[in-house]
């Protein structure tokens, strides 16, 4: 879920009868549940849409390393340090799978980085929030990875083969991360009064940003219908948000922590929790660059990229020299 507000064609979904024979055959394959593979014919808009979605997802993974990376050097025990480092490393690995999946659509990793650095491509709004205490490592694992899983589990069935297969690997690791995060929260919630305070504070700060991860309400989402017809989006934003609240509310109760929403209440009739909408003005602000950490996150990525330029160039130059020497020797 690290893809929010992915721009699509903006047009309404075409009826099968209005499609060209190629488009129609393509749509019918998707409707039958077949996977589309890199060499298969696909409409240009499908390709572009997927590049945006997978690219945004990949960027979210690597920008998402930063808020958690912020606590690796301060992790409170050797075990926690190793677990957190392994988790953030997994995110780099997810970034790698996803960049590779995007490359099968004809865009290079360098091009995608360029679009991230220039602001042409986004990453999930959640990573523009700061991590202020150790309890945030719990809250991020529990809520942020939890929200991501809601979206990513169905994406294992997405129509594009390489994306679906990347999701299978990613989901396995994400659910482990979520349990790890919940365990941190549980330890803190059952700890000293200061630790409990940190845990509640982390939940207070991350609750609404986590709800925002699902994107705006479907009635305001102009991009959903076509993506759903193509099966690159499997559920509506509101469905997933509801599912997340329904699963998370009892978990918070078990921890003895309060979700910061007076309206959160089980609705017997609907069989769901009622809850308050996040502040969508805040969301649009964060998405348009005014979140608490947007500038710093992008600066950190750009700095890493430019500081590393000599390393990448040196490695490339060596590889070329080595290949030439080998050729000369033959």
């Amino acid at each position, binding site marked *: 879920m690290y893809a929010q507000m992915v721009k699509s064609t903006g047009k309404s979904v075409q009826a099968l009868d209005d499609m060209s024979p190629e488009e129609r055959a393509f749509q019918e394959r998707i409707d039958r549940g077949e996977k589309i593979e890199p060499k298969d014919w696909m409409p240009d808009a499908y390709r572009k849409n997927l590049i945006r979605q997978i690219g945004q997802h990949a960027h979210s993974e690597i920008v998402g390393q930063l808020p958690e990376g912020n606590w690796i050097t301060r992790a409170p025990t050797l075990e926690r340090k190793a677990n957190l*480092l392994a988790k953030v490393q997994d995110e780099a690995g997810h970034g790698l799978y996803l960049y590779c999946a995007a490359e099968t659509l004809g865009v290079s990793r360098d091009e995608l980085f360029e679009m991230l650095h220039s602001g042409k491509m986004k990453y999930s709004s959640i990573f523009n929030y700061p991590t202020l205490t150790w309890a945030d490592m719990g809250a991020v694992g529990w809520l942020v990875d939890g929200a991501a899983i809601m979206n990513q589990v169905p994406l294992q069935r997405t129509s594009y083969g390489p994306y679906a297969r990347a999701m299978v690997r990613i989901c396995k690791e994400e659910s482990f991360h979520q349990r790890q995060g919940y365990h941190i929260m549980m330890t803190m919630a059952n*700890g000293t009064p200061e630790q409990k305070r940190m845990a509640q504070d982390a939940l207070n700060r991350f609750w609404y940003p986590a709800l925002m991860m699902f994107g705006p309400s479907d009635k305001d989402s102009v991009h959903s219908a076509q993506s759903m017809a193509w099966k690159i989006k499997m559920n509506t934003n509101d469905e997933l948000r509801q599912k997340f609240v329904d699963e998370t509310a009892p978990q918070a109760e078990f921890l003895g922590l309060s979700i910061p929403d007076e309206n959160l209440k089980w609705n017997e009739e609907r069989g769901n929790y009622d809850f308050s909408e996040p502040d969508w003005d805040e969301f649009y602000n964060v998405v348009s660059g005014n979140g608490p950490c947007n500038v710093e996150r992008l600066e950190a990525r750009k700095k890493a990229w430019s500081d590393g330029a000599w390393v990448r160039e040196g490695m490339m130059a060596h590889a070329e020299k080595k290949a030439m020497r080998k050729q000369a020797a033959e």
Partner: protein
Amino acid sequence: MTVSDNTALFEFLLRQGDNALVLGHRTSEWCGVGPVLEEDIALANTALDLIGQTQLWLALAGEVEDKGRDANDLAYFRDPYDFRNLLMLELPNEDYGRTIMRQFLFDAFQVPWLTALQESNDKRVGDIAAKSLKEAMYHLERSAETVIALGDGTDESNSKMQQALEFLWPYAGEVFADDENDVSVASKGIAPLPSSIHDVWNSTINRTFSEACLKRPESQFAHSGGREGFRHTEHLGHMLATMQTLQRSHPGATW
């Protein structure tokens, strides 16, 4: 064993554990900001191996000391003068060149050192060495390859690597300066003298530098003070202030 035997063994174990802890910590600082995604992942792997080795060495140190301290107590509740790591390992990462050159200089020692430690009279030491050696061999393969690639890469990467080598060189020899503790553990067959590793180390680094088009500095000078804890650099205190902050601010809490 007598009390003094245990003291020498305890010191020896702290040296092993603190080297892994401090270098593991420094390497973990790269997470998320590596020069390329694959390298980010590889650096995290190295850091994870080193943190794992720390847990083994410091747990055994606590056991040998027999004062009820576990690996976490030793990592989080000692002050800089009680740390026994090499000075080179606590220096800030600065840039990738310095990071990978330091890793190489250390790995080139660790591989023959751990190989020899496998034969320790103390089976617990031998077991940890055997497990760590597998990781160290992989680290050396990777750090040596990277030093070669960047030394033999562009003019810029060659010059960065040469600068990194010159900066680190005065710290590289600390590990070979045998002291009383080394003599004591060597006399009991727990470990060889570190100086006995010098020739192998020399041949590894000479071979690598020649392939990497790097010039080995001529100076024989080596800083000292880290492995005895007598005089660390100014950097260790800052590193520990960061690393230990939660444990020190909330004593007695469970994390």
